[in-house]
């Protein structure tokens, strides 16, 4: 589904090179749930943002469904509509109602009719458990509700992959559960997911595979059982000791 080959992303900050992603090669298979963990600043989010082209690649390749994002001729917009993304800060459109948030891209990008898009939107709102809020504005919702709307908004495009960029990090603790529940349900339905998170419980329970990143490098990768029980790398052991 998504293949990254020697992926590199270098930022230049005040004449200093920061290698945010430093040569990552991995293959995310269809239907797989991959959780990316690692300390702050290890390049997890940047890696995720490379997968739908929100960051331009410095070197290497990202193949999404066989299409190379590094190729200049690739129509990014076509790739992105197949790759849903959920952000840490929700990034709902504040000037649109909840339903409009879900409908807009369906109509403007997928060229669906309004009635069709609204029906799809309502179904998804029901699925994430906030159908009664369809005519509210994002500012009137709690963080957890906003994030669930954001997930529904991404799902409305019927993506083949969903990327989650620390979806619960900006939430109050009591709202983390409701968002994770929606994500678990998605995973059970067989959605291909790449999740950057600090929720170790979620990783352990839902992930098919865990990627551990540090300083832009893929330090360790394996099943959650392997990673949480008997990590090989010293850096991973240290990290787990600190977070668990």
């Amino acid at each position, binding site marked *: 589904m998504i293949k990254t080959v020697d992926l590199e992303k270098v930022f230049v900050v005040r004449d200093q090179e920061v290698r945010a992603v430093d040569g990552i090669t991995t293959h995310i298979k269809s239907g797989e749930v991959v959780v990316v963990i690692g300390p702050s600043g290890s390049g997890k989010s940047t890696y995720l943002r490379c997968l*739908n082209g*929100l960051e331009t690649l410095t070197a290497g390749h990202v193949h999404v469904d066989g299409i190379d994002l590094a190729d200049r001729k690739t129509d*990014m*917009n*076509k790739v*992105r*509509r197949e*790759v*849903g*993304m959920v*952000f840490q*800060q929700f*990034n*709902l*459109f*504040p*000037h*649109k*109602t909840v339903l409009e948030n879900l409908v*807009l*891209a369906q109509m*403007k*990008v*997928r060229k669906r009719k309004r009635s069709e898009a609204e029906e799809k939107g309502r179904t998804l709102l029901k699925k994430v458990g906030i159908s009664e809020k369809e005519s509210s*504005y*994002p*500012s009137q919702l709690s963080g957890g509700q906003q994030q669930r709307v*954001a997930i529904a*908004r*991404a799902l409305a*495009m019927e993506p083949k992959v969903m990327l989650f960029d620390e979806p619960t990090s900006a939430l109050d603790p009591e709202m983390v559960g409701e968002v994770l529940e929606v994500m678990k349900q998605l995973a059970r339905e067989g959605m291909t997911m790449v999740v950057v998170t600090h929720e170790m419980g979620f990783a352990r329970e839902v992930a098919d595979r865990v990627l551990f990143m540090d300083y832009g490098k893929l330090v360790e990768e394996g099943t959650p059982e392997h990673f949480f029980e008997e990590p090989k790398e010293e850096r991973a052991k240290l990290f787990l000791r600190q977070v668990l």
Partner: protein
Amino acid sequence: MIVVGLWIATKRIDYTWRWNRIPQYFVYHDKDAKTSDVDGTVTSLVNIGNQTTVTVRSEDGDDSTYIIDTKTANLKVDEYLLEGDTVGSIAEWKAGPLSVGLWVTLWISAVASVIGLVIGVVTGLCRVSQNLTLRQLSITYIEIIRGTPLLVQLFIFYFFLGTVLDIGRIPSGIGALGIFAGAYVAEIIRAGIQSIPKGQMEAARSLGMNVPKAMVYIILPQAFKRTLPPLAGQFISLIKDSSLVSVIAITDLTKSGREVITSTFAVFEIWFVVAFLYLILTFSLSQVVAWVERRLAVSD
């Protein structure tokens, strides 16, 4: 205190206030003489109320009708009229110079505002674009327009562009005002766009929207809402700046005021009235903007 002081001051210079002479410069009742357009015979006189409809048939058999006040009708049926002969006259209410000037100021400002908004949005978008050429061009435009006085721009527009491109004084005036406002609007729009969190553009792009779609549906509506107060200020300024077009002999409110003064010498009254009329225009605009702001506040 101030009012009393002014009153004493005007007493001292023997100024006679003549407020009663002002209203006639808004509307006045005027006799409008109607003359025959053709050589022909009067075929009918029909009285309706105190007005009479006169029908004159020319030698070619075409009828022309004239509506006049009955008391001015001195004609009989079958009377022969030459072209230019008086049929009668009619008294009508007519807009005085101040009303006409107010109207000219209003529509010149309105058209210039629309032009300024269009130029401003386009330039604002160029200003934040990735394309270096577009960015440099927009910066150059903004710097040149902001860095020179509007009065000088008006003269250049009227005397240079107006002559070279052969456009009249009113298009010159409107063009200069619109382009002047556009530079300021562009900076307001740019600030508005840049004030929208980056995540909004990213969310729109991640849903597969291209940049123009994201701008039109996501960024600009939010930026517009945020920039409404400074935009309102800009358009209020534009209404006031439109008074400068009087220097290229457009009969706007200010020029009408000056013309009325030359015939009445009611200098104080007229300028107070002119100021008040500008205030009505700008205050109405503020109210409209405040209403729009309240409408847009529902999503807060």
